[in-house]
């Protein structure tokens, strides 16, 4: 994934930082970032700044700023999850020929018009 120049905080913010078993090694929790990490790729795709956008989780109905979501970016693709229920809000895969974007976990995204 490219275009990530945000101030994403690293996985040290894991909700269970004291759990050594969650990590490959102690003190190295499953790495995830906040919603800022997804902003670069989505800007690249749509010229849309989603950080302040308000999204509704289709799984649990939580309505939150996109920037508060959890982003798992070290796998085969980027997975954005709801911080309330951990349901998948958005997936983005970059192949040599395409972007694959799945937003089926969001029932809406409310984007501010101010520019």
């Amino acid at each position, binding site marked *: 994934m490219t275009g990530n120049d945000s101030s994403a905080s690293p996985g040290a913010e894991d909700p269970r930082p004291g759990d050594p078993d969650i990590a490959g090694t102690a003190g190295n929790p499953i790495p995830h970032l906040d919603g800022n990490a997804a902003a670069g790729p989505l800007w690249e795709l749509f010229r849309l700044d989603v950080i302040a956008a308000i999204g509704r989780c289709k799984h649990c109905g939580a309505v939150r700023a996109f920037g508060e979501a959890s982003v798992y970016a070290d796998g085969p693709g980027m997975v954005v999850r709801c911080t309330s229920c951990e349901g998948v809000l958005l997936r983005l895969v970059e*192949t040599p020929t395409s972007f694959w974007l799945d937003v089926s976990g969001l029932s809406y995204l409310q984007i501010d018009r101010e520019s």
Partner: protein
Amino acid sequence: MGIISSGFRGRRQAGSPALPPGQYETASFPVLTAGPAPDIPTEDWEFFITTEEGRSHTWSWDAFMALPQVDIGTDIHCVTSWSKLGTSWRGVSLDTLFEDVQTTSRFTTAHSYGGYTTNLPLRDLLDGKAWIAWEYDGKALERAHGGPARLLVPHLYFWKSAKWINGVELTQEDIPGFWESNGYHLHGDPWREERYS
């Protein structure tokens, strides 16, 4: 690839016959995950196989551990381009688990705790090609790597080796799983570079 086949051949150079096209060798074991690691105590763990007729075969942890256990030495290949050569595992062959399962299905969906899914043709799970592994490198499989148990299908890209495995559902059709439904290849053979759909 197979039981105690490649575990002791030592490290090989990039471009060696052990590395599929586009892969490089790593000595570490990167943790790649699409979400938080579920915490499944073995007393709550269960493995199921469900058939197209709705029949369900299930094993508790104790029943699973009472099955014949085998050591597996194999290379693993991640679609993000790293390969790890000569890894050693211990677990139960899918052949053992499918012994009493009657089915005409040709496809499967592996289901993980936490909701992850991946699709595999049934033939890729049988004939000594796949295991439910609970030990890695002589130690209980760490939660970050899929413990208490994960699917191990080393002849396919490693996203097919579902962590935190819960069960296998037999299906009549090939139904794309978590990554296969969003850009990744339905089959995922690293030797044919079946990375993307």
